[in-house]
């Protein structure tokens, strides 16, 4: 089995790399077909005050006088060596811009992910074990969460907790409490699909014959839940969590704006308005890397978590039955 698993892991990792490269190429092509020559427009902007030599240097660096294919190859080559180029707006290295913004966003996204999982788990448990009427109410929470836009939740939380209760101040958006509320804002809509999946698979598992048989062995509902139902019900949500990471990356732009945090969201926002091609390219590629990496981990984990996924093994043959 280990040999099989290694082969499986290597194949998946190779596929992941291909996906990242394709995402890079795709982003590059999208940006290059955008109307207007973004780079030269920015460079020629008198506000930048770049000298002719500077411009020549930058043009040569990006191969801007070359055909798109050459530009792509140059850019891809630099990407593979970890060189992300320079921002056209600030002349700072892109790696520095992104590196400065990344910790803040990572803190926010990770906290949000944890909160989302906790929310989803609590909702799913409640939907399963609360008495009738309450369970029905709990079951409707995910659709409520989904239907309220992210920014409304954020504004309500700020209004109530920052301005009324003074739990945190908007002037210090990176304080732990402020981060917590920002993360809750981000987590609420994201927890909804996860909760739906958990509710559905708990419903499914608790109706399975094995749950009935386990009950016939005298297990209490709590033990049945903890020992039998949690694991199989959680398996489908592992893939869901991986997808949620994508949502968190996208959602962070809005949340960071509302809470006044500096992060990747802010970087993206500036890069888009300023047509800052190298920054855009870097951020999109970085998101692709994170997204693909998380999904890769989910893929690689599922055979370890679920024995049924293990690559085919020879069945113990029944020696008795003729």
């Amino acid at each position, binding site marked *: 089995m280990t040999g099989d698993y290694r082969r499986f892991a290597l194949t998946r990792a190779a596929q992941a790399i291909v996906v990242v490269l394709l995402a890079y190429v795709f982003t590059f092509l999208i940006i290059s077909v955008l109307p207007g020559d973004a780079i030269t427009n920015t460079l020629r902007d008198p506000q930048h005050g770049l000298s002719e030599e500077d411009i020549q240097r930058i043009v040569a660096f990006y191969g801007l006088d070359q055909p798109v294919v050459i530009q792509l190859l140059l850019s891809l080559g630099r990407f593979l060596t970890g060189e992300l180029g320079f921002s056209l707006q600030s002349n700072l290295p892109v790696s520095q811009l992104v590196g400065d913004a990344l910790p803040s966003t990572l803190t926010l996204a990770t906290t949000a992910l944890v909160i989302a999982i906790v929310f989803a788990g609590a909702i799913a448990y409640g939907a399963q074990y609360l008495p009738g009427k309450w369970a029905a109410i709990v079951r409707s929470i995910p659709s409520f969460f989904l239907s309220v836009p992210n920014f409304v939740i954020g504004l309500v939380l700020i209004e109530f907790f920052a301005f009324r209760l003074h739990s945190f101040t908007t002037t210090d958006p990176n304080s732990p409490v402020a981060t917590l509320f920002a993360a809750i804002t981000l987590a609420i809509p994201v927890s909804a699909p996860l909760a739906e999946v958990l509710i559905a698979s708990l419903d499914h598992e608790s109706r399975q014959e094995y749950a009935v*048989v386990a009950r016939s*062995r005298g297990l209490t509902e709590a033990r049945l839940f903890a020992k039998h139902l949690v694991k*199989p019900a959680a398996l489908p949500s592992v893939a869901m969590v991986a997808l949620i990471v994508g949502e968190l990356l996208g959602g962070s732009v809005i949340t960071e704006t509302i809470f006044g945090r500096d992060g990747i969201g802010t970087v993206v926002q500036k890069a888009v308005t300023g047509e800052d091609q190298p920054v855009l390219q870097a951020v999109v590629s970085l998101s692709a890397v994170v997204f693909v990496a998380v999904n890769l981990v989910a893929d690689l984990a599922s055979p370890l978590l679920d024995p049924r996924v293990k690559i085919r093994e020879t069945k113990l043959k029944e020696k008795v039955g003729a």
Partner: protein
Amino acid sequence: MSADLLTVEGLSIAYGPTGVVHDVSFSVAKGESLALIGESGSGKSTIAKAVLRLLPHGEATAAGRVALNGRDILALPEKQFRPLRGRQLGFIPQDPASALNPVRTIGAQAQEAAALLGETDPSVRRGRILDVLEQVGLPDPVRVYDSYPHQLSGGMLQRVLIALTVLPRPSLIVADEPTSALDVTVQKLILDMLTELRRDLDISLLLITHDLAIAAERADSLVVLKDGAVQESGPSRDVFAAPRTDYARSLQADVPALHPDRYRDQRTAFQPARDGDYRTGHVSSPSARLQIDVRDVTKRFSAGGMDVLACDGVSFSVERGRTHALVGESGSGKTTAVRLLLGLEQPDGGQIAVAGQSTSGRSRAEVRDIRRHLQLVYQNPFTSLDPTWRVSRIIREPLDQFGVGTKPERAQRVREALEAVGLPSDVASRRPAHLSGGQRQRVAIARALVVRPDVVVLDEPTSALDVSVQAGILELLSKLQRELDLTYLFVSHDLALVRQVADTVSVLRKGQVVEDGAVEDIFSRPQHPYTRALLDSIPLATPAAALGEVATEAKQLAKATA
């Protein structure tokens, strides 16, 4: 009646406003076995669940009295009932493949059962578990202990479940169709083992089954249920030999093992006198009469680096208007043989001819045309019909696909097909969900007939159906064969059924034909030990001495097969 372990009095169960069980009473004495018999919808499983208090919360309401050792368990609060679970009341479920948690090892789940013994030391518990696994005939208990359910076969899983059930030494076991998901030879072994364990450990049994033959063979007394009400009850031999009610009589009449010649008249009426010297493989009958001729077909699959010979030189042939049966258990290669014949798989070697035309070396279109004369009726009518289509469209599909006739002609053909299978014309506008199992299988047969094929492949056509429905379908198939001069290839694991419907038979095992010939010869003089094992596994009501006429008939059959 203090000797009664379980007493059920006036039990009625309803799901919401719909009553499914009405005023049912019976009792099981200590050490005795009682079988609840009925078809789907008879409420037999619901009664079992009520006895075990496993009815879904809030959905089902039970009234009446279910007493275990004199205590009314319906009235007990859950806290007081829980200690009885497993320790007093064991449960063996129907489908072993779904009755164990797929993501936990057998050992982890067995520990739960062992915990009921009150033993706290896990290693002692483990020893007890390994002992009981060995007791139920599992050859390598340690390996089983560490396995996940998907790594074991169905028969092994059912042994595991029985082991877990008897481990805490309950006084009553409720077994809900414990063998209906298993191969016939395994079925017999499991039932034998259960009978033995019961005797050794002095456990009472409440057996839920649809199979009257199994019930009569394994239970001391019977309760026949229909639509949630008791039709008849009493000692097995009485109910079985001399059923008093019409329903019990018809159930008895529908057991294939007891009435091998049931469809004989209908079928032989149109057939020329059977030539006694028929032998598959070396017949001299004109090949023009051969509708299907499969010669030495081989098919290899590779699974997990291992090559499996699904078909290893399989040969069989079927004459026009006759029925040939392919018999075998799971893994015997019968399904592969059918898939090869239907062109769903390509053989690695060998020849397949349909109506004298070889299918090898022909273009796709030509083969497709040959296949048109070959239609398939699937095993499970509950899954083989598209639930979103109306019946008329389901039946019309092959016509649309082959581009047969104009639109009104197709509609006419659909009407004719419906009429031929004995369905009212208003069924055409319904969807499968609104049809019963028997009606669905009739729709599936109509779909096969609508292109007017010469050959119909029947893949376990009645195994998902109740016996009484099964009889109706088999009657229909016999009638259609006579009227339309159809050739049938009948795939089944049920030898008793094969005896009723087939003229010739091939017994398959592990991809090879171990024996073939006329049905009478195979049944009266089986040559191969595997064929004998298959015949032995047909449940027969042999224990009772005075079963009357039916039993004599059954016994003759038993003798013939011994």
